[in-house]
């Protein structure tokens, strides 16, 4: 790019310079012709005019001195001449020999042997006052113009040297500036190499003295690291929670069976050990199923198994299914649904609604009412699951959708846990997979509402 610009500039400068030099030669030729004409007009005497012209041109020293020829048409001999022999310029290598019309002049390029000349041929009416014949006057002046090319050559050489030097200097300067400018970037890059999943440090914690241009970059990077660290932390916590939740029931089952087996015991002991183990295995089975569903939701982006699902029908089916469970708790389950078609995975949507209804019955107060209602507007379907349950503190409302949140909370409070702590996390992920949301509102007077919002089709 830089080279191209320099090349264009050089060519332009060359052409311009050459034109200027040529114009200089031409104007010199014109003024010389003018001088000759003036001398001819002023002095009637041939001798005087000759002297004047010879004085004007000076002595002819070498091939580079100008040569001239002045003659009147119809006269045998030249009127004034620089003394060059031969019928020049006609015997020179000349581009054309066509004479200018009277009162005009014409420039020619010519060369005598190897020597380049610029010629001006002027045809003018007879300037002599005393002349009776009035023959047109021809003036040819030829000047050596090889110096134009020599000068241009010098100029080009100089231009080339300067150009190369400038290019070298600018490359050097650019490299130096780049290196100098990249120094903080290189420093930061080295630090970035230290950042790993286990060592998610922020750049600003060990890159001090960041140049102002890079401050925004470092800040953006640090914000990214923060988000990654949060995600990693959540992932780690999830893994730790999941492994605890998987291992504990396994440990219980194993210990129960090994304890029973460690010596001979009455058959009732074996039976009770087996019953307990089955119960624990069911808990484990439920947990594994939920974990697998979560993993499945995490992995598969595809909507290939989506179909049109009527949420109203789905809600009715689930409510009918949960009716005995509600009655068992002495509660009532009411539902009021409408037809609302959404696009999605039938099984996942079923799980989403079932989890919410199951929670409402399980954690709502005994002998109270759980209601499911639906309405659709603005292309969205809202499903509301309401129970008269106590207040979920505002600061906890976001956290309840965290995987294993309930488990952690229950662990802290030392009450017995019946849930896996994954139900709401699953519900939220399913809603999000279906381009929807799930929100909770809880207040001691009215109870708790979970609202699922999904796009209508």
């Amino acid at each position, binding site marked *: 790019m830089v080279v191209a610009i320099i090349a264009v500039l050089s060519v332009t400068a060359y052409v311009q310079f050459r034109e200027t030099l040529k114009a200089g030669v031409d104007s010199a030729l014109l003024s010389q012709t003018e001088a000759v004409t003036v001398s001819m007009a002023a002095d009637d005497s041939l001798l005087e005019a000759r002297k004047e012209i010879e004085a004007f041109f000076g002595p002819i020293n070498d091939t580079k001195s100008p040569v001239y020829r002045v003659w009147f048409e119809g006269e045998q001999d030249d009127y004034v001449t620089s003394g060059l022999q031969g019928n020049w310029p006609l015997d020179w290598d000349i581009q054309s020999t066509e004479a200018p019309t009277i009162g005009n002049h014409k420039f020619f390029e010519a060369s005598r042997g190897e020597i380049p000349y610029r010629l001006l041929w002027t045809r003018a009416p007879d300037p002599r006052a005393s002349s009776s014949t009035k023959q047109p006057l021809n003036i040819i002046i030829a000047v050596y113009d090889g110096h134009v090319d020599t000068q241009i050559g010098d100029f080009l050489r100089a231009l080339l040297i300067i150009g190369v030097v400038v290019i070298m200097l600018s490359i050097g300067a650019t490299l130096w500036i780049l290196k100098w400018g990249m120094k903080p970037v290189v420093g930061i890059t080295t630090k970035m190499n230290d950042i790993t999943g286990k060592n998610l440090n922020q750049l600003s914690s060990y890159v001090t003295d960041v140049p102002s241009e890079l401050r925004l970059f470092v800040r953006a990077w640090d914000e990214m690291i923060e988000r990654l660290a949060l995600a990693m932390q959540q992932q780690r916590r999830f893994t730790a929670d999941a492994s605890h939740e998987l291992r504990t029931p396994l440990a219980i089952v194993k210990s129960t069976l090994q304890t029973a087996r*460690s010596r001979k015991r009455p058959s009732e002991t074996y039976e009770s050990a087996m019953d307990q183990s089955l119960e624990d295995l069911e808990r484990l089975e439920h947990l594994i199923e939920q974990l697998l569903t979560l993993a499945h939701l995490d992995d598969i982006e595809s909507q290939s198994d989506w179909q049109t699902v009527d949420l109203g029908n789905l809600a009715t089916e689930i409510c009918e299914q949960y009716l005995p469970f509600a009655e068992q708790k002495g509660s009532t389950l009411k539902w009021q649904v409408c037809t609302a078609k959404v696009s999605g995975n039938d099984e996942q949507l079923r799980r989403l609604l079932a989890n919410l209804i199951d929670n409402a019955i399980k954690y709502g107060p005994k002998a109270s009412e759980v209601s499911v209602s639906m309405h659709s507007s603005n292309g969205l379907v809202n499903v509301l699951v309401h129970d008269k349950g106590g207040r979920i503190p505002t600061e906890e409302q976001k956290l309840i959708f965290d995987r294993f949140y309930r488990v952690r909370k229950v*662990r802290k409070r030392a009450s017995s846990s019946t849930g896996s702590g994954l139900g709401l996390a699953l519900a939220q992920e399913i809603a999000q997979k279906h381009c929807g949301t799930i929100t909770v509102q809880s207040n001691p007077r009215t109870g708790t509402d979970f609202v699922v919002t999904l796009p209508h089709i």
Partner: protein
Amino acid sequence: MRVLIIEDEARLARNIAQVLKESANFAVDVCTEGVDGLHLAKTNPYDLIVLDLTLPGMDGLDILGKLRSAGKTVAVLILTARDTSSDIITGFNTGGDDYLTKPFDMGELVARCKALVRRAYGQTHPEIKVGKLTIDTVARRVKFNNREIRFTAMEYRTLEYLGMRAGQIVSKTELLEHLYDFNWERFSNVMEVYISALRRKLDPDRKYDLIETVRGQGYLLKEK
């Protein structure tokens, strides 16, 4: 030997307690909550604590740290689902003596518990030899003068404790504290009944004064 199990899964704790009673003849206390667990561990001279880490009330590592800060030297076996090497290292560095991850093998747990208790009393051989008396702590068999003697569980527990501390005077309170869990009604004269039963079974002819009564201080199992 008396063990405290701090484990929030009640059924698991119960199973461990049962096996430690049956297979190791330990006196076992169970606690399913962190704060109470720390209190029990601080106020009773346990020979071993089996400690879960994920506990309600107080985290197991906090309990361990506080116990060590309070100068308690009791052996602690950490029993947890946390299985990464950084968890294990933290467990040991907080003051744990052993680390077992869930799910675990009951037999292994019992063997580890026995080894920890043995080491706590400066014993390395599973067989305790005191003069002509041999106590095989694995098979729980006692031989005196090459004659095998059968004891009840409580008698054996008493003799094993005296054997672990052979050559030292053991007070009646110490015996009570190390041989009974906290559900037991403690009457000090119960110890005298066991000691006399031990003496009678070991040495029916009263030829050796194997277990000496040090007046006002306690009992001494003599090394010679």
